[in-house]
């Protein structure tokens, strides 16, 4: 069964996180769940990968955070995109679309057999 290589994912995780937060503020656990659903099990990013990247994006001012009360009066940290984060996401989206177009011309459409989605994908 084909797996997405770590080198292929390098540099893309930030864009993936920004795209999840495009729909609205969210917190770490929900972000990881959403990423897993959107990736259809092909890749599953763990908390060891996601939280450092979230903090890094916050340090770069692409995200901002706030604390809210969750169930059982727990404190929960919510992240949302900043204006700079939206701009970077739009740029990355354009870059990706251009790359996809080029690669499709190089490799031809539909030549790869995509793996079937499975509940537990390759864990990064």
């Amino acid at each position, binding site marked *: 069964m084909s797996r997405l290589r770590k080198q292929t994912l390098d540099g893309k995780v930030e864009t993936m996180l920004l795209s999840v937060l495009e729909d609205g503020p969210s*917190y*770490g*656990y929900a972000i990881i769940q959403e990423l897993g659903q959107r990736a259809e099990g092909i890749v599953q990013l*763990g*908390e*060891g*990968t996601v*939280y*450092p990247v979230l*903090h*890094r994006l916050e340090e770069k001012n692409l995200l901002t955070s706030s604390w809210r009360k*969750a169930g*059982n009066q*727990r*404190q*929960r*940290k919510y992240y949302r995109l900043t204006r700079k984060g939206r701009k970077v996401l739009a740029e990355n989206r354009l870059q990706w679309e251009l790359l996809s177009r080029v690669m499709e011309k190089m490799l031809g459409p539909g030549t790869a057999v995509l793996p079937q989605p499975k509940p537990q994908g390759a864990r990064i």
Partner: protein
Amino acid sequence: MVYAKRDEKDATNIRTELEDHLLQKISDLEAKGCSHTDAVFQAIEDHGHPRTVGHGLRKRFPWVDVRTHGTARGFIAIGPKAIGVFAIGGAALGLFAFGGCAVGVFTLGGFALALLLSFGGFSAALFGIAYGGFALGLVAIGGFTCGIVAIGGFAIGLWVPHGSKAISYFTSETVPVYLRYFGGLLANKHSLMVFWGVFIAMLAIVLPIQGLLTNKEYQRIKRADPKLVE
């Protein structure tokens, strides 16, 4: 948080965030039918080793990064593997690299690869001086040497001023003046003593620093929680 080395405020926030994550995960697993014990075990196992999580939460490139496992990254990096301006480790990459296997501009190590100056058992300097048991470089000094100017027990080079066994392109009659002068500058006893002295001095400075700081880090982690230390 012991491994993350964050200030108290950051550490508290991160701890709260990750605690919420774990509790939410446990709650979801229980909702799917897991027992509480199994859910806790699964959540902690999926979270990963504290060291892996902690190292991932460190600042990206701090002034000083000392680790007992993995790769240290910082202006001064010390660890089993190290990347930095000053890198000290079993495998080191940096402007100044010291270690078992050292790669950089100025290096010292068992296997030392440098752009300008290398000292080591096996030593290679692309555009500079290599000093070692086996030395390869623009200028190579040591036991077995190969370079434009080679000085050593067994030496191969364009010009070999001194060597027990020598293979030299130029002879003392045909060698260009600048190479003769350069070779003379490096091949005298005084220069060789200086190189040897620099080598010993670097070892005497770097090895204790590495040992002290690594041990300090190990003791810091052990004081925080002896169970974390393997």
